């Protein structure tokens, strides 16, 4: 317990978290500080490019692990299953409609890549070296949860969820997935040589770019929270904090069963704990337009994301180390 607190305290004073806090504070104070949309998108392209490539290069360096395929399958299953758990929890502790609850649930089966990046950087800073293919697991977990959400609506709801032709392709080929997987493969193919070439671009400046990106996330999350305060009931807030812990428990079991390294287990916990705020909201606007976006965006970006960033990650790290002996 002490260890977790020390870690959390340490984590809370890292530049990454402090810049996120700066963004939150600026938004709450109604400062006009903002990162232009194009620049923010540029930063996220940089992060996906870098994290994908590094993951692939690390797979090239360490060879394919026997558990790679199993990890991908486990990720798939978790992404399909977690929305069901989230939905049950939401119906138990909040008064959301079936449609809103299903939409929220979909977000929690999917993942937040920035949370993943932050966890990776904490893991490496304490000397762990997570399996490089966890990046591929992250990619695999993005989309299935959307199908679960739509299935929930079809099964329990009144409004119809359109799963039209185009949508599935759109989801699977959304820009983030393509860039992440593509960079992963290129990192894998080009290996050490490729890495040597572009390391000065994707390794050295990475933490600095991440700070700027989290500043932007803080601004966006803060503005969202300010606008949508009214929707955030005690029940929803409780869900936003409890669900990542529940999710991480499933990730923990998966990671342990797969025999991943301490860092790998921690990342599996983080992926299961985190909630999407890009791919899933876009899909929900198309397929479930009746669901209220304030609810799912506020929960995912305003509650769960900051929770994971500040307290969640140190907890997952401590638990993973304790149980793997890492």
């Amino acid at each position: 317990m002490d260890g977790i607190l020390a870690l959390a305290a340490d984590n809370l004073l890292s530049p990454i978290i402090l810049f996120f806090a700066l963004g939150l504070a600026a938004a709450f104070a109604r400062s006009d500080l903002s990162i232009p949309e194009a620049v923010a998108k540029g930063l996220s392209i940089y992060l996906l490019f870098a994290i994908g490539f590094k993951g692939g290069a690390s797979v090239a360096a360490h060879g394919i692990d026997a558990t790679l395929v199993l990890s991908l399958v486990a990720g798939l299953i978790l992404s399909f299953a977690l929305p069901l758990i989230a939905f049950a929890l939401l119906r138990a502790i909040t008064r959301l409609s079936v449609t809103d609850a299903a939409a929220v649930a979909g977000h929690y089966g999917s993942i937040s890549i920035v949370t993943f990046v932050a966890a990776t950087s904490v893991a490496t800073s304490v000397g762990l070296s997570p399996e490089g293919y966890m990046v591929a697991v992250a990619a695999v977990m993005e989309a299935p949860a959307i199908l679960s959400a739509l299935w929930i609506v079809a099964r329990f709801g009144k409004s119809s969820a359109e799963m039209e032709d185009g949508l599935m392709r759109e989801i699977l080929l959304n820009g983030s997935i393509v860039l992440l997987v593509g960079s992963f493969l290129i990192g894998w193919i080009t290996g050490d040589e490729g890495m040597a070439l572009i390391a000065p671009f994707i390794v050295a400046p990475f933490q600095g770019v991440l700070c700027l990106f989290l500043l932007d996330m803080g601004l966006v999350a803060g503005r969202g929270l300010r606008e949508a305060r009214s929707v955030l009931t005690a029940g929803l807030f409780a869900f936003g904090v409890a669900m990542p812990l529940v999710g991480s428990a499933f990730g923990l079991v998966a990671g342990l069963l797969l025999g991943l390294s301490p860092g790998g287990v921690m990342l599996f916990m983080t992926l299961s704990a985190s909630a999407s705020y890009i791919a899933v909201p876009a899909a929900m606007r198309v397929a479930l337009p009746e669901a209220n976006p304030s609810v799912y965006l506020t929960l995912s970006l305003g509650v769960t994301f900051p929770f994971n960033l500040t307290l969640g990650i140190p907890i997952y790290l401590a638990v993973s180390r304790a149980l793997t002996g890492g």
Partner: protein
Amino acid sequence: MQTHKAKRVEITIESVMEGRLTAALIKAGVTGFTVLPVLGGSGRSGQWSREGQVSRAGGMVSVVCIIRPERLDELLDAAFGVVERHIGVVTVTDCEVLRAERF
């Protein structure tokens, strides 16, 4: 200079629906359209601004379509099919166009 009567239909809609809307318009036989960016706005579902978006999930665009008056109903039906369940505003204005053979 010779001008001709036409209708200017402007549909403000969520970005995620842009492709679906323009596909429906093309299917309804429009000869062209123009997409304008939207910075922000306010309506029954609250206020938003482009700088406060993490993603394309929340933004909107405005699709403008100039058509011959007699084709208006067809276009509105097509547009309504897409907009119906979604956030969005549809306006129609009378206008005059040069080079009417284009529409």
